[in-house]
């Protein structure tokens, strides 16, 4: 009876440690993933809503359908696209 009682706190300690390590590593990974995703999001808006910056796109009829979903991102996207920097800089 005593043995399992001892083992459990040990296991939970180990679990805690591993969770911390995992959490530390995962945090960075998820941050990187989110950044990549954000870049892709901007690329996506560029492909579908390029007309907002004067870049003609095809075909406007269906891209209008997507417009409502990207309304909140448009301001940030425009700022990023029009920043006086090389586009490659913004990727990293």
């Amino acid at each position, binding site marked *: 009876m005593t043995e399992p009682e001892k083992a459990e706190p040990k296991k939970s300690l180990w679990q805690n440690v591993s969770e911390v390590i995992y959490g530390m590593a*995962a*945090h960075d*990974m*998820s941050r990187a*993933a*989110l950044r*990549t*995703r954000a870049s*892709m*999001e901007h*690329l*996506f808006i560029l*492909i*579908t*809503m390029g*007309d*907002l910056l004067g870049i003609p796109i*095809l*075909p*406007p*009829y*269906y*891209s*209008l*359908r*997507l*417009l*409502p*979903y*990207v*309304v*909140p991102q*448009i301001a940030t996207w425009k700022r990023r696209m029009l920043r006086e920097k090389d586009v490659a800089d913004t990727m990293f």
Partner: protein
Amino acid sequence: MKLKDVLLQHPERRYLMFGGGGGVGKTTFSAATAYWLASQGKKVLVFSVDPQASLTDIFKRDIFGKGPVKIMDNLWAQEIDADSHIRSYQDEIRKKILDMYGLPKVPDEIENYIQAASAEPAMEESAIFDAVVDVVMQGDYDYYIYDLVPLGHALYYLSMAKVYDEWINKITKLREEMREYEEMVSRLRHEKETEQDQILNELLYIKNRINTSAGILTDKTKTGFFFVVIPEAMVINDTKKAAQMFAKFDVPIAGYVVNRVIPHELLQQKIPDYLRNRIAMQDQHMAELRATFGDQVLALVPEMERDVTGLPMIEKLAATMFS
């Protein structure tokens, strides 16, 4: 083979299209075919994808933008009003934005974009293209007859389906990649479910619509595409070129129907040289048509003594077309 036999032997071809240059009789033949099928007891919808539609003129009824209008038993006609379709589409987008974000009014920048996008030259065609999907999917007709736009435009219409398809595939792929990143983050954070990507759903919806429309245009079992020709050098040359291009887009060409043939019986009468020469000219072109398209030439329709408008004239024309 005759046009009548082609239709009777292929009842599974529910989508019939008449294409050809400007003014050769696409609308006339669409109306006559619709009339004939309706009089055979089939439920038929004839509709125009041309922004300058003339079904209103041929049936002598104001049907523009009114949805399917009943012309006679079993026969309905429809002219799509692209402008009002675009307007209600814009309103739908605006309402969605207001509802989604609880805004009192659409932000100026977004409003400008909505208006600018609608002024694009491709917008009208795209709107009609999209409206056709509704027409074809909602109705329960035995036959759908497309009164097409003149050749150049029709090619554009067909190529649009291909362009749309490629565009949508590319962005759907990008969206799916984004989705993978999102799911990865969810896993790392031990979140059970990733939020639904509404854009991806929307893209899949668009894809489905485009595939439906494009699928019909190129489906050999369900669709019959007929070229309307008149025995004149220019028209024949245009048709030959167009036929090759249409074949590239996998359009199932079902045959050729010749319009405005001057009746040979006139030769028995005392007629001026002018008419005699035209008959000789047409004979020459008819020989060329037969040499080029062989038994794909399905019907010869004579030049009528007056305009084909109104049901009695349509009936008369249909009688010779489907003799």
